[in-house]
């Protein structure tokens, strides 16, 4: 996968995903060492190009790059290209002239990493583009499920929340389906995108209990309360009552079901307070795996000679 752009899970084959997950499993061990650093990407430059602030994802990529001994540079830009009077082409050409070995891109508008990738010589890793894709998040989720359940094939996975505006949902739907899981989505109809079942190949529910009935994995998405309250749902209270997960509601799922969340959790909204902290939630495993998974991505696309 040397030199390849990682723009979305939709573009990856099942074999690609397996390669990435297996590589990440090998990377996990490095995080357990006393000296958490290997020289694999020494002399390589990784640019974190974040047009939208994201402390968690940016930090995860930064740590991943540093554990592989790459020089990681954070390049934060705020505002649209129109407000800056700089086109995406200008941005891409400027970065290209600095000769990076990989560029990690986050933008609030769908498609920006794809446009940059057309110009940049270095491989582009999409760290989240609008409501489109967030491949590294989905891959770390797949890694976590595989770690917890030993497999993905045949599992039932329910994703709850604002599917319409969620890149995490789209990438996870593509990924888990490619690996043979059944994926369901649940949320108020105002948060389900147009033609969701046909478009994304999932079953959609507006009733939480039905949606998680018999599920192996229940994934709650973060609700953007400030933006959506009053527009897509009447109140946080009603959302928490209808789609918030607690231990009582979780009983509809399989007995050994795990609970996931891409973070940060709005406590008492998507997840009850106790559920956010303890088993069966695996939220911190997701965060830990995020570093290993991103190490795998950087190694695979920017490493010398590959694996």
């Amino acid at each position: 996968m040397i030199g390849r752009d990682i723009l979305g899970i939709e573009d990856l084959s099942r074999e690609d995903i397996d390669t990435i997950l297996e590589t990440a499993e090998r990377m996990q061990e490095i995080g357990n060492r006393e000296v958490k650093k290997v020289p694999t990407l020494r002399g390589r430059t990784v640019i974190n190009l974040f047009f939208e602030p994201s402390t968690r994802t940016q930090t995860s990529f930064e740590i991943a790059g540093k554990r592989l001994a790459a020089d990681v540079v954070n390049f934060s830009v705020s505002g649209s290209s129109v407000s800056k009077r700089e086109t995406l082409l200008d941005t891409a050409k400027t970065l290209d002239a600095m000769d990076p070995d990989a560029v990690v891109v986050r933008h609030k508008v769908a498609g920006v990493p794809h446009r940059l990738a057309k110009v940049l010589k270095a491989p582009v890793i999409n760290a989240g583009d609008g409501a489109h894709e967030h491949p590294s998040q989905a891959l770390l989720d797949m890694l976590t499920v595989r770690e917890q359940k030993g497999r993905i094939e045949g599992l039932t996975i329910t994703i709850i929340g604002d599917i319409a505006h969620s890149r995490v949902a789209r990438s996870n739907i593509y990924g888990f389906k490619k690996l043979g899981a059944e994926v369901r989505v649940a949320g108020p109809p105002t948060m389900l995108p147009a033609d969701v079942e046909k478009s994304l190949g999932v079953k959609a529910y507006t009733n939480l209990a039905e949606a998680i009935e018999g599920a192996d994995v229940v994934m709650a998405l973060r609700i953007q309360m400030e933006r959506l309250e009053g527009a897509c749902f009447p109140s946080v209270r009603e959302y928490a009552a209808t789609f918030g997960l607690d231990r009582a509601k979780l009983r509809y799922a399989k007995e050994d079901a795990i609970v996931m969340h891409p973070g940060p959790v709005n406590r008492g909204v998507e997840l009850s307070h106790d559920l956010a902290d303890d088993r069966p939630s695996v939220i911190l495993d997701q965060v830990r795996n995020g570093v290993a998974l991103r190490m795998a991505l950087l190694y695979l696309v920017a490493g010398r000679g590959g694996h």
Partner: protein
Amino acid sequence: MSKILIRNGRFLDPSTDTDLPPGAGELLIENGRVVAFETGGNPIPEEGTEILDAEGAWVVPGLIDVHAHLREPGQEYKEDLASGGTAAVAGGFTQVACMANTAPVNDDPSVTKYILDRAEKESPAKIRPIAAATQGLLGEVMTEMVALKEAGAIAFSDDGATISDAAVMRRVLEYSRMADAIVIVHAEDCALRGAGVVNEGTVSTKLGLPGNPAAAEEIMVARDIRLAALTGAKLHIAHVSTAGAVHMIRKAREAGLLVTAEVTPHHLTLTDEDTMGFDTSTRVAPPLRRQTDVDALRRALADGTIDVIATDHAPHASYEKEVEFTEAPPGMLGLETAVAVCLDLVRDGTLTPIEFIRRLSTNAAGLLSLEGGSLKVGSVADVALIEPNQEWNYDPARGFSKSRNSPWAGQSLTGRVTATIVDGRLIYDHERGVLIR
């Protein structure tokens, strides 16, 4: 003034339902008029007559575009009357109606006159200004339609700045009857459209881009048809894009309302699937729709529910399009590619050649009450030669528009305008370029 004799072509004149096979007719032009349309023999031309051999070509009345954005005054970095007018004749268009969203807005007779003066000097195609329907395109106070018409405006429209207030729209339609001109609407409920930039459906869901539902267009089409019924005005619906809108327009026409409609080359041939690569040249308003909509638009154009093909030629500078998809201004070039792109409808049997030309010329002349759209003796000598089978590679950088925002850039197209005559003068030849300004 010189004489031009056109021979050997296939003559297509929708105004007289004439379709003469090659060799069966000759057209003689003198002093800006068609002076003879011979169907028998091959008279020996008088000395000094320029002979145009149209072998392999269709000879048709000059095309007329009822909807283009030529950007002058105010946005000459995108296009001006010279570049837009040249792109027009290169595309076979001898007359172009230009929208009012210039800077300043064409909402005052002085602006209309300015455009006409500039066009007279700079544009090889004849420019027909569309004036704003409300002052400043603000949707509040109607423009001086009578004075604007007097100054040369041929229709009224706020185009993309849809008039949201139904009471204002009603008054505009009522008042337009006095100016005896059509009111052109870009039908879209702006609140329902919201931030939508692609058709709402599978494509918006997969791309994660804000969707613009077909209902946003259809609600406004329904409203404006009701207002046309209320006022008896001539309502023209711009760039129809959905099957639902087509259905309502068909019913309105059956009911005898004075409702007409246009469709663009891109809405006839592209779908929202063409947006899948995030190419901002596919960002248009209204957005590209589904295949079922395209099929309905093609049928509606064939059965007369939709009167004309209009380009909605909308040039934008490269740097304006090389941005986030949601930030890119909507619109694409159309004048230089319309014929080739739309010939697809002839190739697939949707339209016969003569019906194709009717929708690009004769019907447009009728809609805007313009001279043209005919090869009859006595007609204004606006003529285009089209070689329907000629393949060419479209490179906007080598075209005449100042802008390059076309989804057909770099593609091989079939069907080419090879010559254009305006007011009896051969003004464009595809091998020699623009001959006279």
